[in-house]
Structure formats: C-alpha cells, structure tokens
C-alpha cells in the first residue's frame, strides 16, 4: 500500500470503529460526522461541512465540574465524571479522553521525581508541574547511544523513580547468552532490596491497571455517545527527549556547544525508537493520530541555524516515519513558532495537523505551513482566562477568517488550558458552530 492508502485505511478504522456500541443511531451519526469533519480538514482534499472544533483542555474540565486536580488524580470515577461533563456539555468534534490528570497514587508508589503533582509538591488546586534536572549526565552520551534501552533501564529509570533505584543491580539482558554462568545474572533478583522494589512495582502495576481500566471504559463510553477521541498516543521530537527528559534545558544547551556531535548522534539513534513508539500506539488503538508535544524548539529557544541543525531534521524524520505508516503526526507547538513556519513546511501535503499557540499572524501561518498541513489553534490562553465573551467571539471570527478558507483548519487553542471562564468557552464553541460553517 502507498502511504496515502495506508492513511485512508487508518482513517476508515477511526471513522467506523470496529465493535463500537453506540448509544443510539443519532450518536453513531454524530460520531461519523465528527470524525469525517476532522479527516477532511486534515487530508485537505475535500472541504469539511464546517470548521472542526477541538478544545485542548488539561485541568479545566476538572475545575468546570467543581472538583480539584487532586480529586481528579486520586479518584478515577470523579475524574471521568468531570471529563464526561466537559465533553457532553461542549460537544467538541475531537476530545483527548480523560487521561490528562493521570494516576496520583501510582506516581506516589513509584516516587516519581520528574514531576510534582497536586498534594505532592504543589497545592491540591494546581496542575502537576515538571521538575527539570540533569537526569542524564553530560558524560553518558556513549552509554545512551550504544544501548538506549539498557541505559533507560539501568540508569535513567532508577534516577527518576525512587522505587526503582535498587533495580540498577539487575543484569544487562544482552549478557544472558549461554548456560554457563547464566544463573549469575539472576543473583540480583535474590537480593532483598531488589525484591522489595519488585514488590512495589507490582503494587504500582496494579494501580496502573486500575487506572487503565477506568480510562478504557471512559473511551468506550464517550465513543458510544458519539464523541471521537482524537489522540491514540504520543511520541516526541528527539531533541525534546534529550532536552525535557534526560539532560534538561541547561544540559542540552551546553551540549549544543560542547559536544554537538554526540548530541546529534544520540538524536539519530532515537529516531527509529520514536517512530516505533508512535506507530505502535496508533495501531493498538486503531486511531491514526499521534500527538507530539514540542517544547525546546519554540521561538527564541534556539537560533534559526540551531533549529535547522539540531531540532528539525530528526523531528522531520520521526514524522516521516509515522506518515509512511499512514499515521497522522499531531505536533503541538506550544509557545511561539513564528520563526519556524517556513522550515516545518517541508512535509507532504495532507499528512499532518499542527496545533499552534502564539502565532502573531495566523494568515501568514495559513500561507506557509497551511499550504501543506492542517493548522489548528491559536486561541490565546490569556483571553480564555481573562477576556470577555465578546472578545472571544471576535477572536474566534478572526481565526476563522484568517485560516478556514479552503479547509485545513481546526478551531482550537494552542496551549492546554487549566483556566477559562465558562462563558468564554461557551462563546468560543457557539461562535465556531455558527460562523465556521462552509457555505
């Protein structure tokens, strides 16, 4: 199959999900209409019936339902109630499911260092926040490059999950080759600290399973009601894997100057891993969308030359790897991306959807990236939070005027929102439904 055929087949599975039990014929009709609307906007072949609507919320549904982020992370039922209320009340064409808050008790059992979450380092009323650090040191590139999985298992994971610290002692799997000496590799499993850690992991696994079950049930329920989940899973730009997860912002910046070749090589090694991660998630969910949150390539974070050398080539390689398998990359360019619009336009038409956040001139985004890709977003977080319904209405119309012509635009915001006035979200939705119709 060509990549176009593969994408078409993927979309077909999403538009007509096998085994889905819709609540009623209307729900099924709505589901088809919503998925088709999004598909048409992305493929850029047919004009959708109206501009699709996707509300990219993080913790706002939780506030809207009157519970705290802490409640959402520690009580899956309450969490699902909140996200269901949000989706049913505002009826977006695409939704993210209910997995954004995540399982607090699991993070606690694992003693996760990379984040602070409500009641665990930040107030119960606030969202979780990342604790950046140098979880990989500057001299560990060779270890990462030589054997990424082994590096993650033995070095990175024990550093970010305190519960996994004793597992540093576990054997390197590729050293288990023949009968002679094989048992020696397994001695660490007999050590009390390792055994205690494994017991904790079993408990954490049970909690994760419980949460996963709740999320799966939510997906089925919301689909049955006619609301499509728009993301199957995620992958990342290799630069962000190293900059967000492993080395931190300061660390990766130093590497750009002090060891650029190692950084480039490590990113190249991450490309097939990131492709596999995305394709696997999409196939598992029969859903073509793979989200790619973009962080360290925003305006100002890198010079143009640095972006072209360090950020874009491996991100593009990951995206092309997904596209070749019919998967639709869904990058979210949080922060400004004004200086990158031309560079990232180097993609086949109708294969990607881009969430944009702080673009100064969306008409320019439409003229550049919008020529080859569906663009989404740019409703400002500040206006949602502090503006008036009149401002929101005007901004919604402005976005539609600038971007919707000829299709290829999804109404959305660009940075996940925790805060918004209810009347603003209402005005945003109503204006899109009214003003966004293609005549």
């Amino acid at each position, binding site marked *: 199959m060509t990549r176009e055929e593969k994408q078409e087949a993927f979309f077909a599975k999403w538009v007509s999900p096998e085994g889905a039990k819709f609540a009623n014929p209307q729900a099924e009709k709505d589901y088809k209409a919503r998925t088709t609307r999004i598909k048409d906007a992305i493929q850029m072949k047919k004009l959708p019936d109206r501009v699709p609507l996707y509300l990219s919320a993080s913790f706002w549904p939780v506030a809207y339902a009157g519970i705290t982020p802490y409640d959402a992370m520690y009580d899956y039922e309450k969490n699902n109630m909140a996200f269901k209320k949000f989706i049913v009340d505002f009826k977006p064409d695409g939704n993210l499911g209910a997995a954004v808050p995540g399982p607090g008790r699991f993070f606690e059992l694992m003693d996760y260092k990379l984040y602070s979450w409500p009641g665990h380092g930040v107030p119960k009323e606030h969202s979780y926040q990342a604790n950046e650090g140098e979880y990989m040191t500057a001299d560990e590139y060779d270890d990462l490059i030589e054997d990424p999985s082994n590096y993650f298992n033995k070095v990175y994971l024990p550093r970010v999950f305190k519960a996994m610290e004793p597992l540093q002692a576990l054997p390197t799997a590729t050293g288990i080759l023949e009968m002679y000496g094989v048992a020696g590799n397994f001695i660490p499993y007999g050590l009390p600290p390792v055994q205690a850690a494994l017991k904790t992991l079993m408990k954490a696994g049970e909690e994760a399973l419980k949460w996963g079950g709740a999320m799966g049930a939510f997906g089925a329920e919301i689909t049955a009601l006619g609301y499509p989940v728009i993301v199957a899973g995620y992958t990342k730009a290799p630069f962000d894997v190293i900059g967000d997860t492993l080395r931190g912002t300061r660390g990766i910046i130093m590497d750009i100057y002090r060891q650029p070749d190692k950084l480039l090589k490590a990113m190249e090694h991450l490309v097939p891993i990131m492709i596999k991660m995305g394709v696997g998630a999409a196939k598992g969910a029969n859903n073509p969308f793979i989200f790619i949150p973009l962080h360290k390539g925003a305006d100002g974070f890198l010079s143009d030359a640095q972006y072209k050398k360090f950020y874009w080539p491996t991100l593009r390689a990951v995206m092309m790897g997904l596209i070749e398998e019919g998967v639709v990359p869904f990058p979210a360019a949080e922060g400004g991306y004004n200086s990158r619009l031309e560079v990232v336009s180097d993609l086949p038409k109708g294969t990607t959807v881009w969430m944009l956040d702080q673009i100064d001139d969306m008409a320019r985004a439409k003229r550049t990236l919008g020529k080859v890709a569906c663009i989404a977003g740019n409703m400002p977080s500040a*206006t949602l939070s502090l503006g008036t319904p009149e401002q929101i209405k005007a901004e919604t119309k402005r976005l539609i005027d600038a971007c919707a012509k000829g299709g290829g635009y999804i109404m959305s915001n660009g940075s996940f929102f925790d805060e918004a006035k209810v009347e603003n979200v209402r005005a945003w939705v109503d204006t899109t439904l009214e003003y966004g119709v293609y005549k």
Partner: protein
Amino acid sequence: MAKDLTKTLADLKEDEAVEIVQNRINAGDDPMAVLHDASQAMEIVGARFSKGEYFIPDLVYSGEILKRINEIVKPKLAGATSVKKGGKVIIGTVAGDIHDIGKDIVVFMLDVSGFDVIDLGVDVPVQKFVDTIKSSGAPIVGLSGFLTLAYDAMKETVDAIKKAGLREKTKIMIGGGQINDEVMKYTGADAYGKDAVAGVALARKWSAAK
C-alpha cells in the same frame, strides 16, 4: 599582544576565554579588571540578544562560561566584592508555580547587568514578597510564572504589596510563558517583559527614573 577577553567571551569562545583569564591571573593582572572585561562582554551578549542575533542558548552558555571565569578569579579577589550599582531587584516565581528556567535567566541577566538580585526561588508565598520588600528596601520586583494559574497568584501578590502600603515605591514587572498585556492589566503590574533582556531594560529604566 594578549587576546581581548571581552570580544572572546562575547563571541562565546569558551576555551579561549578561559585561557585568557587563566593567563592574566597567572601574570598577576588585577582580578577586578578581568571581571570588568567579562561584564562588558555580557553587555554585548545582552545587546546581541535584543537585536535577535543571540538566542536563549547563547545567554545560557555565556553564563556557564562566566561561571568558569568566576571560579578562576574569585580566589584572587581577597575580600574585595564587586559593587552592585544597579540597585536591588527582588525576583521570584509566584505561589503555586515551580517553574524556574525563565526566572533563572532573568536573574542571571540582571546580575551580570550590575543589579543586586534577591532571588526568592519558586512557589514564593505572597507574604514573602512583601516581607522582602520591607527588609531589603528593593524598589523593583519581578514576578515570574509559567502557568495560567500564575495570573491569580501574581494579582494576589500585587494586591498584597498594595495593602502593605508599599505599592507607591515599588515597580512591579511580570514575565512568563503565557503573559501578555491583558495579563499585565489583570494583575495590576506596571509592565511585562517578553524576555530576560526586556526585563533588564525595564529595571534600568526604573532605576534611572529614581
């Protein structure tokens, strides 16, 4: 002819700059003169950032080189501390928000620009800002925040400063990922800086006006 430290550091040539410093210190050069040249380099770095020639990585990297230079020079300073001429500035990430990358860059740029920076860290309670203004007499406060949740914490901080009767003599700037004019008006701050150098420019403007 000794190579020019100011130019070398401003051009971010790390090893060369460190070597020049080492040679000058070994030759008995005045450590204060070395630091003076280095701080001139940082001014050039800031100017290049303002002009769009340098970006965040260049600022961060210049800071790292400066750190290495300081490590060489500091032991030779023998009690002489550099005099901060730019006045006191209090900086912190507001309550509930633990993001520090942007704040740290602002602190660094203010510091190399000669300001006496009091860095309160992250998740700073409202009262701590008020208390620090009282105890230090700093006329300028910078509030940092990455989340939209920070809008309210910023507003509460500004309100508390007002309530404590300190608003008249305190200039307040805000900054962060989702900050714009709308947010500035909401919080009641005097200005917002879109990046670290804009923050330094505000602090300079307010210091000069005094």
